[in-house]
């Protein structure tokens, strides 16, 4: 699924022109990307949260030469799926509800 598919779905469901829904989908992801790159977390109930986590600097090794090198501190992006999403992915029609 790409942005194009999402624009098509909005167009079919809401009767807004495809030209406009394409712009809406762009704006949706641009806004999320903008917030994340400013270090702000995203919370979408029913889907999950996307958070920024600090990774401390640590000593690594050059795998070829074995020389120790410092890996600088950095920020990582972590997605935590909501319980709702995990449940939906694991739902089985036989009624079994695995622990997620």
């Amino acid at each position: 699924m790409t942005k194009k598919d999402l624009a098509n779905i909005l167009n079919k469901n809401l009767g807004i022109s495809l030209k406009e829904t394409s712009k809406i989908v762009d704006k949706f992801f641009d806004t999320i990307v903008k917030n994340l790159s400013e270090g702000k977390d995203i919370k979408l109930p029913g889907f999950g949260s996307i958070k920024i986590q600090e990774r401390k600097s640590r000593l690594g090794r050059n795998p070829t030469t074995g020389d120790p090198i410092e890996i600088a501190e950095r920020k990582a992006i972590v997605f935590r799926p909501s319980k709702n999403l995990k449940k939906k992915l694991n739902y089985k029609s036989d009624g079994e509800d695995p622990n997620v």
Partner: protein
Amino acid sequence: MLKSELEDIIGEEFKLDKVLSKNVINILVESMIDSIKNNNRIEIRGFGSFFPKTYDSYNGRNPKTGETILVPEKILPIFRPSKDLITKLNKKKG
């Protein structure tokens, strides 16, 4: 950033009323859930991708009682941020 803030931004930009902008965000989120559920990868350039990953069942332990239990097979959604996004995030100070 919360869902309601996204709704407001979309509503303002495209002159949609509250009900419609709420609807837009809900449909986007629900469509993404359906896509992952149907085993379809979501790929958004400049943002990243979502895909389901199946984990085998394994023998785990109840940490309280030490009892061995079978943890059933499960599917978890995985997000891989795009390199662009990681680079952007690490360029900014603060």
